[in-house]
């Protein structure tokens, strides 16, 4: 299958500089990005399959001797291309704070407890239809010092590989109805509201497991669409 990667699709992304997000001020390039044609280098990408994903890597609640504290959840969905087709054998890596909003990273100084039963890292591979599934706990919100009383909405970081190096995506999955959305400069760095809402998972009652875990669905749409022009209606 041949894919095309229209440059217009990149408009969904935040601009490099978003002054409300202070860390971007000294790290965003000031010169415009140079638009270039894609060559085979851009149109190919690492093809990663099952070999980097070990048994159990997609369940963040079973990596230690005990179960982590917090609300157990299932996060699942499809990795899709811009035509809505599943992207098979896609590697997904996630990392997140624990239920108290604390990361195990050594530089996280938020005075909330670490959980000895929770690392917060996971890995999965999409199946032939692009479907993936993680089991984890719902991460907490946490303060981050960007401005007075700054709190990040609860989120799970996602790193995804698609069909080519230019479909590579690192994003954050949010939870529906979070009251912190309107105050978060990272979430709001995405200029278009519809695009912003594509980062918000939906509550999935149908896939909730009774007496065990709530479920959220998060579909991830990567760059790439069929290069064959579709018939116009």
């Amino acid at each position: 299958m041949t894919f095309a990667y229209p440059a217009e699709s990149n408009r969904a992304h935040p601009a490099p500089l978003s002054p409300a997000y202070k860390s971007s001020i000294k790290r965003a390039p000031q010169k415009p990005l140079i638009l270039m044609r894609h060559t085979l280098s851009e149109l190919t990408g690492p093809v990663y399959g099952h070999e980097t994903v070990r048994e159990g890597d997609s369940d963040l609640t079973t990596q230690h001797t005990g179960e982590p504290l917090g609300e157990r959840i299932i996060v699942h969905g499809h990795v899709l291309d811009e035509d809505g087709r599943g992207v098979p054998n896609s590697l997904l890596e996630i990392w997140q704070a624990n239920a108290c909003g604390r990361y195990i990273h050594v530089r996280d100084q938020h005075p909330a407890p670490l959980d000895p039963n929770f690392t917060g890292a996971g890995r999965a591979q999409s199946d032939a239809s692009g479907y993936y599934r993680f089991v984890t706990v719902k991460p907490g919100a946490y303060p981050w010092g960007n401005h007075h009383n700054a709190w990040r909405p609860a989120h799970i970081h996602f790193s995804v590989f698609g069909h080519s190096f230019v479909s590579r995506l690192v994003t954050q999955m949010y939870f529906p109805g979070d009251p912190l959305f309107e105050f978060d400069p990272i979430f709001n760095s995405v200029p278009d509201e519809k695009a912003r809402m594509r980062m918000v998972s939906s509550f999935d009652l149908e896939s909730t497991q009774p007496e065990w875990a709530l479920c959220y669905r998060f579909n991830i749409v990567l760059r790439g669409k069929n290069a064959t022009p579709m018939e116009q209606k």
Partner: protein
Amino acid sequence: MRETTQETTHGITPSQTVGPFFKYGLTPGDKYDWNDAFTNNLVTSDASGERIRIEGRVFDGDGQPVPDAMLEVWQADAQGRFADPKDQRALPNAAFRGFGRCGTDENGAYAFDTIKPGQVADPDGKPQAPHILLAVFARGMLRHLYTRIYFGDEAANAADPVLAIVPDERRATLIAARESGNGNPVYRLDLRLQGDNETVFFEV
């Protein structure tokens, strides 16, 4: 099979910053209770070609080192072939994968051990100079940025169609200088995210 349609699938999922805390998930090394899916060593025993090391540092707009960046590279093998089925010429059994990942250290430094890539054609069939694709992720970067690493000792740079679209005075930000010394050749390329000698980044 599950339903793949969702109301929100029109348009791609936007990028968000990798943030300050990715290390334990993406580049844990031996520091965390997790394992690396990828490393900064791309060399495999069966890979032909010249063994090289690429080194450099990442700096912000104040010239300060960026200690929390993640770099990913993607490259062809020494024959200019990619380990991707979309490259029909690829040898399916070659162990060389052409992909690596490296977090910067407290000095903003990174390094990749790899082999020097061969030439890859552009869409018109014209050879490009040997190059490596580089994606840069960091706290403060809301989307990752793409650049390229070229090699200072390559005469082919003069005719490279991508270098040709870069203004003359900025081209040097893409070209790694070969250093002499013992052992494998080292190519050095610093990245400047902003300011004087800002690295050229591409919209791809």
